[in-house]
């Protein structure tokens, strides 16, 4: 699109979608023996891209396995933490949608629509 605001918001939504998928995977495997939960970070890469003047569209989300101890015959998924993270990611996603709509509203106003 060539617009930095729209690109940044879109990159953020992409990252949040990856996070939601990863959390869903963690929660799906709460009872899977030996499963190690993953966390997703895209914010730092997005921040670096914006600070360095690079295109936010190139930002990739990175997945990191957690280091919590695995309980015997089960996984290391912390259900409370995952639930809070999921709500957080969901609300952030909605915020990005609002941000995009605000941007579109400004564009539409400037076009006299």
């Amino acid at each position: 699109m060539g617009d930095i605001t729209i690109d940044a918001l879109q990159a953020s939504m992409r990252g949040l979608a990856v996070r939601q998928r990863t959390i869903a995977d963690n929660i799906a495997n709460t009872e899977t023996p030996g499963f190690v939960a993953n966390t997703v970070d895209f914010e730092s890469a997005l921040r670096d891209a914006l600070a360095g003047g690079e295109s936010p569209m190139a930002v990739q989300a990175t997945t990191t396995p957690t280091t919590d101890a695995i309980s015997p015959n089960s996984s290391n998924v912390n259900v409370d933490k995952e639930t809070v993270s999921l709500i957080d990611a969901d609300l952030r996603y909605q915020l990005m949608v609002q941000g995009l709509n605000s941007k579109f509203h400004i564009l539409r106003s400037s076009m006299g629509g």
Partner: protein
Amino acid sequence: MAGLYGVLDTSGSALDTFKTWMAALGDNVANVNTIKRTSESAFQARLIEVRERAGGGVEVAGVDFSNPEGTIVYDPTSPLADAKGEVRAPAVEMSDQMTSMIAAQRGYQLNLAVIDRAREAYQAALQIGK
């Protein structure tokens, strides 16, 4: 598996798996008092094995069965009792089954909540440009 739709697929696989587990547990509990002749093998409880599914989610890896030996119980009034008055009861531990049932039920509810959350996100995405 692109975008948010992966969440439905992942959590859906978990609902499937937890439901399979609950079905097995229900069957095990239902048969906790199923006794057999000592000449037969005991009722074998179904033990569900799960593993991580490639590409996200969880799946049933296989089914294991509890010890066919069961336990020999003295019950001379049973019509199935042998000459010594003994019958074969299943090796099903009720406390194990019930704690697993709670875990399976919680897992099911939790994944259902995740699907609900994902739906909210899709609905938000539908508002883009409105």
